[in-house]
């Protein structure tokens, strides 16, 4: 049905006029806007009344313009029973004007309409890639860190010795009993028992609700020094700077969630079976085509788990007689897959291009061990963005090597896809490298897309071969329809859809004055063809025209740069690339991890963070890892900086070199800070 006069649907659209955090331009479609505006003022009045009464409003009425306008007042954005929450987390500091229409819930995806707080993620073309220098801490910090570990270890053994003597029951599961060897011996589990358990309250914190801009913690308590935890029953909403929700697609409202709901209604929740034996749905083919289009490859294959994408597909690529060259900090799933493949492995120093080149020269000239026969294939596996370091792989250098040394390149873009590049297409997009010149691009949907599972993409020949050979394609359950719908909808939202206006499904919202664009296939990195999406998927206009996606991409880069540089200016040692949404803040001492975590959790605006230490990192570089999201507002990053400033003083963490700024200066000149040229650090 072509566009006609506005139908009654246009007055009360199923999805509200969805211009996300943009000032609404006065367009020809005045009808819906006036309704939305009057609705807004009404709910704002209701909100004001509720606040005046000093009640805990059950919902965030003014801001929860959800997918269904009529239902929004009953939204359970704040759960009943949530006793502790901070106003700042639920309400934006600047209330929206009637001009602004948000389709998101502030606690899931922060409201931000300031165009200054945006930045494009791109490597400046033509500039050489500077190696990322990692600052070392002062000697006394190193020294005391080692001392801390020694004290912990000595003390742990001391305790083991006495506990074994006085309370053997506690060790029963660690020593042989009834002729069974223990699952772990007391020696093997020493690190876990005597070091990790001490700070176990910082790990596996149970949560509820959306892992968006904020998250609700289910508070817990331990009476036996972290061996068991009991819920206290209290719920605490905290600012979430830990989830891999890079583009903020972890949302219970909005275009993607609507698409998922529709998919559940149409498809149910399961694909019931393996891809090769009856579990292949039309949605799988559509998603695979879209992914290939998104990353700029010929074809792609999806898998229902990100970890399994590596662990079950790498063995289908290389085998005995092949060599895998792997960055020493590659993810566990890559190591798992390489080990299964039977190929030889050599590692090079993290992101060290000199070391890589030396290694390449050595392995090619030496050939296979002992026999010196030439290698069948050499596969270099690196991550686009390293999950613990925030470092970005030096793709231009690798591409140079690739020409000379003829190895195949596999990039794990688990963290970089969506989060990097002016179009969100990952490291290749960031550096302006042609994706087709990279043999394999792998990524996961768990992070930027707010879904689950992973993909692998490459030339048609390679992917077809993987369809025949990969373990998961043959034996693992296929990806479920709701997950596929989220993948398709979020990806389409980053890409934009052409033509931007639907022609048939929701013609009611189209006004006559708008022209229908023709559907033309666009070159990489272009928009997705409307016909490549499921016909029932009814995405809101702001998603289709790509404005929402671009907003997300630019917000995350601003936030990343701001947090990174802000922390540096506060005097912390921060690793990683400026544009990386992963921002590790070094704390070194194992003993400071838990206080950092607890202080932030109990901060006036609770903040949840991730602390990591050995064995996920080298022994001495214990760190806090922030994962910035497009869902955060500038004020959220201010809050994090403020909290870190406070904790950094308390725990003596400001060991960084370089110029320091006071907190006020940082927060007031955020935009300047973000746009600043990086002073070369030697």
């Amino acid at each position, binding site marked *: 049905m072509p566009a006609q006069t506005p139908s009654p649907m246009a007055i009360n659209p199923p999805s509200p006029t969805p211009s996300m955090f943009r000032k609404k331009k006065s367009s020809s479609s005045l009808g819906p806007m006036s309704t939305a505006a009057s609705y807004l003022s009404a709910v704002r009045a209701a909100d004001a009344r509720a606040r005046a009464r000093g009640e805990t409003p059950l919902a965030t009425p003014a801001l929860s313009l959800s997918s269904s306008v009529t239902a929004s007042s009953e939204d359970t954005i704040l759960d009943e029973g949530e006793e502790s929450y901070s106003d700042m987390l639920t309400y934006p500091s600047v209330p929206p004007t009637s001009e602004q229409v948000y389709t998101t819930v502030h606690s899931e995806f922060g409201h931000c309409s300031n165009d200054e707080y945006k930045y494009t993620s791109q490597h400046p073309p033509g500039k050489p890639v500077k190696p990322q220098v990692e600052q070392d801490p002062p000697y006394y910090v190193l020294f005391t860190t080692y001392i801390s570990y020694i004290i912990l270890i000595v003390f742990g053994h001391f305790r083991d010795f006495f506990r074994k003597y006085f309370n053997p029951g506690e060790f029963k599961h660690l020593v042989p009993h009834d002729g069974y060897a223990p699952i772990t011996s007391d020696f093997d589990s020493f690190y876990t028992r005597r070091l990790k358990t001490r700070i176990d309250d910082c790990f596996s914190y149970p949560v509820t609700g959306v892992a968006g801009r904020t998250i609700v913690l289910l508070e817990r308590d331990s009476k036996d020094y972290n061996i068991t935890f009991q819920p206290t029953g209290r719920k605490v909403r905290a600012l979430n700077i830990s989830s891999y929700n890079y583009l903020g697609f972890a949302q219970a409202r909005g275009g993607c969630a609507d698409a998922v709901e529709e998919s559940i209604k149409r498809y149910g929740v399961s694909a019931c079976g393996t891809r090769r*034996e009856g579990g*292949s749905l039309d949605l799988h083919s559509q998603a695979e085509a879209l992914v290939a289009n998104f990353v700029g490859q010929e074809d792609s294959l999806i898998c229902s788990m990100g970890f399994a994408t590596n662990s079950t597909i790498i063995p289908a690529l290389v085998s005995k007689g092949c060599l895998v060259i792997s960055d020493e900090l590659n993810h566990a799933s890559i190591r798992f897959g390489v080990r299964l493949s039977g190929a030889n492995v050599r590692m090079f120093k993290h992101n060290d291009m000199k070391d890589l080149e030396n290694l390449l020269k050595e392995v090619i000239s030496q050939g296979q061990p002992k026999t010196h026969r030439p290698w069948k294939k050499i596969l270099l596996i690196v991550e686009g963005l390293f999950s613990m370091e925030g470092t970005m792989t030096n793709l231009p250098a690798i591409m140079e090597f690739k020409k000379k040394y003829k190895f195949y390149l596999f990039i794990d873009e688990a963290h970089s896809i969506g989060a990097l590049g002016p179009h969100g297409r990952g490291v290749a997009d960031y550096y302006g490298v042609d994706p087709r010149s990279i043999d394999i691009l792998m990524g996961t949907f768990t992070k930027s897309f707010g879904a689950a599972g992973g993909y692998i993409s490459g030339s048609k*020949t390679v992917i077809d071969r993987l369809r025949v050979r990969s373990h998961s394609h043959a034996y693992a359950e296929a990806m479920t329809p709701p997950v596929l719908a989220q993948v398709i909808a979020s990806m389409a939202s980053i890409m934009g859809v052409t033509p931007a206006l639907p022609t048939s499904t929701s013609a009611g919202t189209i006004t006559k004055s708008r022209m229908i664009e023709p559907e033309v296939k666009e070159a990489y990195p272009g928009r997705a063809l409307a016909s490549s999406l499921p016909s029932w998927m009814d995405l809101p206009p702001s998603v289709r025209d790509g404005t929402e996606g671009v907003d997300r991409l630019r917000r995350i880069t601003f936030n990343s740069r701001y947090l990174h540089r802000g922390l540096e200016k506060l005097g912390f040692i921060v690793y990683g690339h400026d544009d990386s949404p992963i921002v590790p803040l070094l704390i070194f001492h194992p003993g400071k991890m838990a206080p950092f975590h607890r202080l932030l959790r109990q901060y006036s605006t609770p903040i949840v963070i991730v602390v990591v230490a050995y064995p996920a990192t080298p022994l001495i570089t214990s760190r806090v890892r922030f994962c910035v999201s497009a869902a955060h507002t500038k004020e959220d990053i201010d809050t994090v900086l403020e909290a870190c400033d406070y904790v950094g003083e308390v725990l003596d963490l400001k060991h960084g070199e370089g110029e320091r700024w006071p907190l006020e200066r940082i927060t007031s000149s955020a935009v300047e800070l973000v746009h600043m040229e990086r002073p070369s650090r030697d």
Partner: protein
Amino acid sequence: MSSAMASTSANLEPLFSFLAQSYTTIENGFNRVPGSAVIARYVRSSHQNDPGRTLLELVLAVFAIWTLLQSRTRADKGDRHFIQFSEKEVDELVNEWTPEPLAEPLSPQEQAELDSIPVIAGAQGPRPRLANTGKTVLNFTGTNFTGLAGNDDIKNKAIETLRKYGLGSCGPPGFYGTVDVHMDLERDLADFLGTESTILYSQGFSTVSSVIPAFAKRGDIVVADRGVNFAIQKGIQISRSTVRWFDHNDLKSLEDVLEGIAKERKKKKAPLTKMFIVTEGIFEKDGQMVDLPKLIELKYKYKYRLILDESISFGSVGRTGRGLTELFNVPVGVDRSAKQSPSHWEPQASQVDMLIGSVANGLASCGGFCAGSKYVVYHQRINSSAFVFSASMPPLLSVSASEGINILRNTPSILSTLQENVRTMRSVLDRLDCITIPSHPASAMFHIHVRSAPNATLHLPGASAGKPSNPNSIVPRDPQQFDIELEERLLQEVVEEALSQGVLITRARRLRAQEMVEARPSIRVAVSAAFSKKECEKAANVIKAALVKVLGKRR
């Protein structure tokens, strides 16, 4: 974690040479540091006063270097196979080297194999529509045994959860990916199975491959069935433990192998290590069922831990779908009324130490689980890589599974209908003489083999007469003979014939040349409780007619 430790010990060797060298470097570096003279004087005097402190500091230095060294894999120049090349020679070698292509193009057979994969347009279920023809078919593929796919209660619950939790969990369980609904499902599963505890994985297939190496390490002993599925094979491979194989579903053979190991260990006075029996409840490869009570008896007798993969049987056998433990009435878990043990981790006797099931197959959702004692589960939460290093499953899938358990608990008729449907189909197909069906009569998924030509050696499964097979090799003493290509072609013809009559079945699609032993080609029929008796009769007759038509022609 422990693998990191293992690799460090491997690095200790070059440490000593490195130590001497680094000492000078450290000394030089140290002298350059401002104020180092003060420290040097301090150390010297403290050594006089208290030599113990020097020792402590020395330990410290060694420790520091040890840390710096770990995870740095250096060029192994010390290797006696290393050839010294000049720069020019290296360049030449680099120029000369031509790699094989990353992937060979598909052969016509492989292409045909891919093209014959059925694709469903729209919802999965007992009567889906095919994408290529648009025809609606009766679907005997997949794993919708309980018929929960498309259940409206589940859909509603899923939508409700979506509106509260969004879709993805956006984090591994350790870092805010432990959502309350995951804990609920873990509790529901533990209650359902009667175990102390359960751990959820986000993919069923990856569960067992990760559980095995979490427990079995180098030097441990794994005794496994020759017919185990691919995921178990991979789990064993990655664990690097010592493997012994017993004949497929032959517990006599298992006993012989266990006895042999016990004797050998006694002779060698081998130290106590962890020992595991790994097998499946219902075998994915042929639908046979293990005799669980006998298996448990052997496990206790020889003091092994039992890793039982119930990916097919959980949700398809037993009165309410609890799997083999319900069917054989063996309580898996521990006696919960037992008095509170002095330690939280007190090892409890548990009949099946690690029970692995598939949430995807059994509860028509996604993911897998491992049920066992508290300690078994706790251990995996820290040591199982597919759990630790992967995001937790989407909350709405977790809630769907919980609802699935609810439905199974309250509707025993689902499982009785399923069993009735299986009986209906088997009664038609069992008597056919051009095929053999190796599967257990109660298995909701059964395999159809082409009956071997009469002149081929007749081989009854499990009846290895004469000398036992070599337990060190997965290949049995007298392996079944079959012509893979021929049988696959015939079976594909049957599949197509059945499809033309509106019944969707599939060959068991195998990773040829990647399995440790080739499985015999088969048609895999998955029965669902969602079919009526009539539909099952009709389907069985269509399959029968197709088999007769294709295989009868051959005779």
